[in-house]
């Protein structure tokens, strides 16, 4: 039963990773990277790794996205 979860989450992971690489507008790329990180947190929770899930959520989703947004604010938003 758990394999269907794995299947769905894997597809979501690959799609969000593709989107975050494909988007020319950097802000959209970073939002899709945050979604990627969130889905990864859910997958870690399903793989019985709660410590890593909290760490990925705290550092991966929250702070990395925050730093990316600051970086875009100080440089250019459109990818030339």
């Amino acid at each position, binding site marked *: 039963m758990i394999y269907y979860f794995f299947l769905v989450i894997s597809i979501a992971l690959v799609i969000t990773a593709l989107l975050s690489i494909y988007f020319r507008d950097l802000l959209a790329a970073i939002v899709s990277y945050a979604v990627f990180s969130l889905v990864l947190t859910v997958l870690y929770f399903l793989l019985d790794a709660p410590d890593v899930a909290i760490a990925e959520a705290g550092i*991966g989703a929250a702070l990395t996205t925050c730093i990316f947004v600051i970086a875009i604010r100080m440089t250019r938003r459109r990818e030339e």
Partner: protein
Amino acid sequence: MSAIILYITFVLLFTMGLFALIFKRNLIKIVIALNILDSGMNLFFITLGYRHNATAPIFTLLPWDTHITMVLPTPQALILTNIVIGFATTALMLGVAILTYRNNKTLDTRKLRGVEEL
């Protein structure tokens, strides 16, 4: 046998990250690709240590009657380290990308090729 999907996602993430690293030109997009590569590595380590119908390696408030077998704990301890290393690399590369933008007014690697002609 459909659990191999997790290994397949790792390989896909790894090659996607590699592909974007080589062919993308924006400095911040390269940092995102590096993060995806690193998250793929973390996912691979955790799937190495996963066991079927086993619980997380924490003994607090586990019901006594079930047959306790646990997931391997060492990959999780190492992934904690690797997530913080990934964050550290991102923070440093973004800081340096901001400074290159401030000095050279561009984030495109083609335009930044000034000095290295030979």
